[in-house]
């Protein structure tokens, strides 16, 4: 069999490919319903107006709570979804962010809303250092190491008297009237969630994100293709820790206390995994949809049955059923069937 070689030079091939890619990108931009997330954001920003006509603190709390999980699950998605490294220890960064900003608030009276990016940075540096050790192993061993990390953090914080030990620390409350007391945290959390979702979108479509996705598909091939897999993985760990740490910072002041048995819970980590997987790991909209679903489900279980054991059982059950029947998650399954509504295609 004879092989005919293409006569055109390499540069013209590259040029044609670039033009083709741009055409594809333009087409994707035209069909993308960018207005939908923006409209959603606008509604959430306007929601506190309800406070003028009555007391809707519970609604605001629910939105704030959901937004915190949207931010954390999307952050988790960078490592777990894009790079394929499932971590069950991300509540460590939630705790570290919360404690760092909370201590600044307790000592110097600086609001966590201002120090949140700094808290995120501390969490990211910690994530980078931990990643250097634990990202040497993959698959099951990595998951185990992440659980051990959480256990270590729990023991350390339980015994660290400077930050209040197991009893934790009470933070000063703001002096706004009850009607408006939640608002600063509400807007801060919405902003963090929106920023995280936007950032995951940018990361996914960058060269960095492409490298991460290559790692999740086949790490050895990715490495031989010239990707510095170790650096990419560790950076993914740091980025995902950053967003979780920021969320923890604002959450601490909102709760008005820091306690190891609230921040360093494996249930928090489990929720992040569950939300991302149920919504669709590695997609942008997946963690958002997953967070909304799980928070709604949790509220339902707590409201109808109350007991926390039922809640744990329910979470486990939803996780198992979701994994067995929809391993790609809601968004992933719909996208595979070509039935994903345009408003939910945020990729």
């Amino acid at each position, binding site marked *: 069999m004879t092989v005919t070689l293409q006569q055109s030079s390499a540069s013209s091939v590259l040029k044609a490919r670039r033009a083709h890619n741009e055409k594809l990108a333009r087409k994707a931009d035209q069909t993308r319903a960018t207005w939908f997330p923006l409209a959603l954001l606008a509604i959430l920003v306007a929601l506190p107006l309800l406070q003028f006509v009555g007391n809707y603190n519970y609604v605001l709390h629910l939105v704030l709570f959901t937004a915190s999980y949207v931010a954390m699950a999307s952050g988790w998605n960078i490592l777990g979804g894009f790079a*394929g490294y*499932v971590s*069950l220890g991300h509540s460590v960064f939630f705790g570290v962010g919360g404690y760092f900003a909370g201590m600044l608030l307790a000592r110097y009276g600086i609001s966590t809303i201002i120090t949140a990016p700094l808290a995120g940075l501390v969490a990211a540096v910690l994530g980078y250092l931990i990643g250097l*050790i*634990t990202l*040497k*192993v*993959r*698959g*099951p*061993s990595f*998951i*185990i*190491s992440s*659980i*051990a*990390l*959480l*256990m*270590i953090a729990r*023991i350390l914080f*339980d*015994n660290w008297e400077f930050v209040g030990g197991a009893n934790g620390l009470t933070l000063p409350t703001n002096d706004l009237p009850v009607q408006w007391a939640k608002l600063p945290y509400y807007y801060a959390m919405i902003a963090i969630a929106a920023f995280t979702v936007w950032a995951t979108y940018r990361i996914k479509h960058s060269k960095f994100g492409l490298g991460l996705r290559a790692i999740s598909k086949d*790490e*050895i091939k990715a490495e031989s293709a010239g990707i510095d897999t170790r650096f990419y993985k560790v950076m993914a760990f740091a980025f995902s820790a950053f967003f979780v740490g920021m969320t923890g910072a604002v959450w601490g002041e909102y709760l008005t206390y820091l306690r190891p048995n609230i921040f360093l819970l*494996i249930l928090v980590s*489990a929720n992040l*995994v569950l939300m991302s*997987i149920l919504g669709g790991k590695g997609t942008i909209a997946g963690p958002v949809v997953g967070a909304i679903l799980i928070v709604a489900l949790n509220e339902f279980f707590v409201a109808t049955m109350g*007991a*926390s*054991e*039922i*809640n*744990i*059982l*329910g*979470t*486990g*059950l939803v*996780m*198992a059923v979701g*994994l*067995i029947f929809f*391993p790609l998650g809601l968004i992933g399954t719909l996208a595979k069937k070509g039935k994903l509504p345009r408003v939910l295609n945020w990729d």
Partner: protein
Amino acid sequence: MADILQILILGLALGGVIALMGSGLSLVFGVMRIVNLAHPSLIIAGAYIAYWAFKVLGIDPIVMLPVSAAILAAVGVLLYRLMFEKETKSAKYSEMTVLLTFALAMMAEGVLGGLFTNTQRVTSPDYATDAFFIGDVFIPKGQLYAGVLSLAIIAALTLFLKYSRLGYAIRATTQNREAAELLGVNVNFISILAFAIGIGLAGAAGSLVSFVFSFFPAKHWEWIAMLMSVVVLGGMGSILGTVVAALLLSVVAAFVGTWIGATWSTMTFFLALFLILLIRPQGLFGEKPEMA
């Protein structure tokens, strides 16, 4: 000197129990590549069986051991068929099964918590609080019985794996699944069998644990990291490695607990896990880890 001997004995006795707790985990990983995060929660289920049998019927936990092992083994068969059989063809098998067992652990905790509340329990047969004295050194009877029995069960398991036909088949499946299948081993049956034995070992460990440690449904989160560090240190899938690692870490933890402080003794296990991942990810007796 007597001090050191004392700590050594206490560490070794506990190490035996921990070895039994980890051996089921190691077996299930070796044969099926499932990292069973639900293992400790099933141990707790076994402990509750022994606890209620003792409390209501007055049956000794050691007598209950085969019963709770059999009940848990049956549960294991059921779980395997329901949750894991279909996954063997999944591309992300190891990750999927870890998450599934994680979900299972949560379900077990929820069910046990709903049924028995979060009160700390411990079975209290006479020997649990009694001790032998040899000079200055005392040996708590409960821990001694549990440790010796655990090592005996592991020895029986090793003999079974080494000399019986089914044991050959299990070891062949551990070494190379496809090759074993080509040689006529019914790999699916062997998987179910090994899973049942592994979970049965959890039941056996449970009845011994019930009078050695106090337990409550959420306790398994503390145990999972401890058992995992034992299994990883020993080399995943190697039962001999699990035993060596359990005895070693348990003795070190006993020394840390006496000399530095009781809260830090559990820390030994977690730090050991990090160290071993850093220095020798395949563990003491493990093969090179595969990158998949």
